[in-house]
C-alpha cells in the first residue's frame, strides 16, 4: 500500500492529491533536492544514500545523458563531452564567457546564447542545467512516491534577470513547476528559522567548492531585503586543495616535481587530507613510493590563510556597501562544504564577533530552506504561516530623451510589484515611441544594462507633450519582468515580456552597484546637464518651427536678428559647455528676447480663430 506522511492538523489531502513539493539547490559544483515529510525537511538521497549530486553531465551519442557521480569519471576520459560548472554559463552571453578562461568548445551560432559542442549536438546551458534538474526530479518522485506539485529553486542573490529567467527555463524544460525562485542566502536563513524573528540583519557566509559569496540580508516585517552581496566567483574549497598540492610538490625532489603521474596522485590526496584535517591534527601524504610527508593542521591553516584573508576583505566590503558595522549583524549563517574547515569558522566568528549558525549540514542548508518554503507554497501549512517576500536586486527603468534612465521600480522593492508612470512625446506629430528597458543604478543609459526594447506605434499625431503614455512595469514573484506601454487617449498599446539578452556577470552586477555609489554625484551633475541639453533642443526646435511659419510676418528684420542671435548663442553653449547652469541661462535669455514674438503669435492665432465668425458663435 501507499506509504503515508504525517500532515499538519486538518491538512490531510485526498488520495492521489498529495501536494508534494521540493526545494532544489542547483549548485555550481553539487546540486541537492530536499522535501518536507512528516513535518521535517530533509535532503533526499539516491539508492546509494548519496544526497549530493555532482553538477556534472556526460553526453554520449544515442544514450541518455549521465548525471552526477556516474558522469564524474568521464571528466578525465572524455572531457569534451563531460560538462561541469555549467551554472557559471547559465544566462550569460557568449561575449561574457569568452572573457573568462573556459575550457568548453563553444559552437558557432547566430543568436547570443552560447552553445557547447557535445556528442549530443550543440547544447545551451539551459538544456544542460535541465538535465541536472531532471535527475533531481526523478530522484524526488521515486522517494516521495508520486508526481511533484512544484519546486522552489535557489539562485545566488546577485543573479540578474537573465540568469533567473534561464534558471526558470531550465526547470520548465525538466518538467518542473516552479513555485518560485529563492535567493540562496535567504533559503539558508529560512532553514535556521531566522524568518520567524521580527527583524534583524543577517550575514550569510557561503564558501563552496569553487565560489565564495557573502550576503548581508535585512529581515523586516517578514521580508528579506538583500542589502549587499560580494564574494569571489573563483575562490573555494578547490583552492584549499590546490594550496595543499602546491605545498606537497615543493617537498618533492626536483626531478619528480614535473612528473605528471606523481602530480595527479598528489592532487587526489590533497582533498582527502583537507577533509581528514577537520577531525585530526595531522595527516600523512604519500608523495611517492619512497617519500611520505606529514601535513599538520597548523601548516594547513598557514597555507589557506591568504585565501581566508580574501574572504574577510569581501566581508568587510559587503558590510561597507550595506552601510553596516560588525556589531549590527544579529546572526551569521555558514553555508557551503568548505565552512567545515575549523579555521574558516574561527576567522569568521572572530570577524563578526558572534557565534555562528553551523548546526545544519552546510552542504544541505540551502536545499532545506528551499524545501520549507516549497512546503508553504504548496499549501501544506495552515493558513497563518507567513509567505516570504523577496526584493529585486537592481533598479529597472526606461530610457528617456537625452540618454537618461528614468527608474520605474527601485532596487530592493519587494516583489511581486507593479508600478506605472506616465510619459509623453517629445516632438510634434510624433507617432511612435521606442521603449528601452534598462536595469541598473546609474543615471545614464550607457552605464546601465539594456534588457529589451519595443516600439509603441500608431500614436495619434499630436503636439509634443500632449500624448499620455502610461508605461507599466510588472514583476512576478520570481523577479521576472513584464513591461507594457499604453497611450491613454487612444488605447493603443504594446508590451513585452523581458526576454533578456543573457549577458551580465555577477561581478558586473557588483561593479554596477558599486559604480552607482561612487558616481552618484557625478551622475546627478551629468543628469541635469543632459536634461538642460534636451530642453535646449526642444526650445530651439519649437522656435524654428514657429519662425518658419510666421517669423517673417510678425517680426521686423531687427527683431528677428535679436532672436536668431540668442538662438545661435544657445546652440553654441549647448554644444560646448558641461555646466547645466550655462545652458539654463542661455535658454532664459532666448525666452526673454522672444517674449514679445510669442505674445504676438498668441494674438495672431486668437484673431485667426475669431475672424469671420459671429459673436454668438464664439460664446459657447
Amino acid at each position, binding site marked *: 500500500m501507499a506509504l503515508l506522511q*504525517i500532515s499538519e492538523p486538518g491538512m*490531510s489531502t*485526498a*488520495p492521489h492529491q498529495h501536494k508534494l513539493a521540493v526545494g532544489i539547490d542547483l549548485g555550481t559544483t553539487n546540486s541537492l533536492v530536499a522535501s518536507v515529510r512528516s*513535518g521535517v525537511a530533509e535532503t*533526499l538521497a539516491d539508492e546509494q544514500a548519496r544526497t549530493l549530486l555532482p553538477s556534472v553531465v556526460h553526453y554520449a551519442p544515442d544514450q541518455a545523458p549521465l548525471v552526477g557521480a556516474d558522469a564524474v569519471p568521464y571528466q578525465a576520459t572524455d572531457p569534451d563531452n563531460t560538462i561541469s560548472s555549467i551554472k557559471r554559463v547559465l544566462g550569460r552571453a557568449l561575449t561574457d564567457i569568452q572573457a573568462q578562461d573556459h575550457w568548453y568548445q563553444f559552437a558557432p551560432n547566430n543568436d547570443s546564447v552560447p552553445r557547447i559542442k557535445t556528442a549530443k549536438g550543440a547544447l545551451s546551458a539551459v538544456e544542460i542545467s535541465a538535465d541536472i534538474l531532471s535527475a533531481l526530479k526523478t530522484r524526488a518522485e521515486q*522517494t516521495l512516491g508520486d508526481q511533484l506539485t512544484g519546486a522552489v529553486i535557489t539562485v545566488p542573490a546577485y543573479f540578474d534577470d537573465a540568469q533567473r529567467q534561464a534558471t526558470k527555463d531550465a526547470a520548465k524544460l525538466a518538467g518542473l513547476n516552479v513555485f518560485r525562485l529563492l535567493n540562496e542566502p535567504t533559503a539558508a536563513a529560512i532553514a535556521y528559522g531566522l524568518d520567524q524573528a521580527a527583524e534583524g540583519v543577517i550575514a550569510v557566509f557561503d564558501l563552496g567548492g569553487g565560489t565564495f559569496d557573502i550576503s548581508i540580508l535585512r529581515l523586516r516585517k517578514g521580508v528579506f531585503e538583500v542589502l549587499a552581496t560580494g564574494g569571489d566567483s573563483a575562490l573555494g574549497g578547490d583552492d584549499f586543495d590546490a594550496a595543499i598540492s602546491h605545498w606537497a610538490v615543493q617537498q618533492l625532489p626536483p626531478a619528480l616535481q614535473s612528473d605528471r603521474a606523481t602530480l595527479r596522485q598528489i592532487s587526489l590526496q590533497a582533498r582527502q587530507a583537507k577533509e581528514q584535517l577537520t577531525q585530526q591534527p595531522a595527516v600523512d601524504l604519500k608523495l611517492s613510493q619512497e617519500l611520505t610527508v606529514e601535513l599538520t593542521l597548523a601548516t594547513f591553516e598557514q597555507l589557506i590563510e591568504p585565501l581566508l584573508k580574501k574572504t574577510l576583505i569581501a566581508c568587510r566590503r559587503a558590510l561597507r556597501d550595506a552601510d553596516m558595522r560588525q556589531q549590527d549583524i544579529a546572526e551569521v549563517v555558514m553555508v557551503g562544504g568548505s565552512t567545515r574547515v575549523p579555521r574558516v569558522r574561527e576567522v569568521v566568528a572572530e570577524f563578526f564577533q558572534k557565534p555562528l549558525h553551523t548546526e545544519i549540514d552546510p552542504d544541505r542548508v540551502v536545499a532545506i530552506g528551499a524545501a520549507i518554503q516549497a512546503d508553504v507554497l504548496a499549501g501544506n501549512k495552515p493558513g497563518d504561516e507567513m509567505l516570504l517576500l523577496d526584493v529585486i536586486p537592481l533598479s529597472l527603468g526606461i530610457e528617456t530623451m537625452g540618454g537618461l534612465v528614468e527608474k520605474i521600480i527601485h532596487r530592493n522593492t519587494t516583489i511581486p510589484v507593479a508600478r506605472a508612470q506616465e510619459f509623453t512625446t517629445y516632438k510634434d506629430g510624433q507617432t511612435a515611441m521606442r521603449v528601452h528597458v534598462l536595469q541598473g543604478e546609474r543615471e545614464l543609459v550607457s552605464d546601465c544594462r539594456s534588457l529589451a526594447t519595443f516600439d509603441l506605434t500608431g500614436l495619434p499625431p499630436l503636439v509634443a507633450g500632449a500624448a499620455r503614455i502610461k508605461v507599466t512595469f510588472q514583476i512576478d514573484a520570481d523577479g521576472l519582468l513584464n513591461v507594457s506601454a499604453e497611450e491613454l487617449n487612444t488605447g493603443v498599446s504594446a508590451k513585452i515580456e523581458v526576454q533578456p539578452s543573457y549577458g551580465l556577470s555577477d561581478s558586473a552586477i557588483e561593479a554596477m552597484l558599486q559604480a552607482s555609489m561612487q558616481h552618484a554625484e557625478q551622475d546627478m551633475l551629468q543628469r541635469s546637464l543632459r536634461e538642460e541639453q534636451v530642453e535646449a533642443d526642444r526650445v530651439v526646435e519649437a522656435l524654428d518651427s514657429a519662425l518658419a511659419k510666421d517669423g517673417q510676418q510678425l517680426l521686423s528684420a531687427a527683431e528677428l536678428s535679436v532672436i536668431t542671435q540668442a538662438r545661435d548663442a544657445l546652440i553654441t553653449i549647448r554644444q560646448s559647455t558641461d555646466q547645466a547652469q550655462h545652458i539654463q541661462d542661455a535658454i532664459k535669455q532666448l525666452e526673454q528676447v522672444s517674449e514679445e514674438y510669442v505674445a504676438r503669435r498668441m494674438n495672431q492665432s486668437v484673431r485667426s480663430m475669431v475672424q469671420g465668425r459671429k459673436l454668438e458663435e464664439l460664446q459657447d
Partner: protein
Amino acid sequence: MSISLTESAADRVRNFLAQRGKGVGVRLGVKTTGCSGMAYTIEFADQVDDGDEVFEQRGVKVIINPKSLVYLDGTELDFAKEGLNEGFKFNNPNEKDRCGCGESFTV
C-alpha cells in the same frame, strides 16, 4: 478496542514530534473519499478533543476519533521503506479490499 504501533513507527513519530517542537501525539483517522470509498489520514495532534480515544504505547499517544475507530480497531501502524520511498503504513484487519494504489480501502 485497540490500536498498536510497531517500534519503528513509534521511533519515527517521537522523532518527528520532537523536531516539530509541539504536539501531544499523532491522530489517525479515516476519510470517506478515494477510489475505494475510504482513505487513511495521519496528522500531528496539538490537542485531545472531547470523546477522542487515546492509546498510549512506546511513549507515543495515538489519538482517534470514535467514528474512525470503528474502521481502525485492531490496526497496527508501521513505518516501512519501499525502494527510495518511506512512510507510514496501516495494517488494518478490517480492510476487505483496496484500490490498486493502496491509498483507499473498503471495509
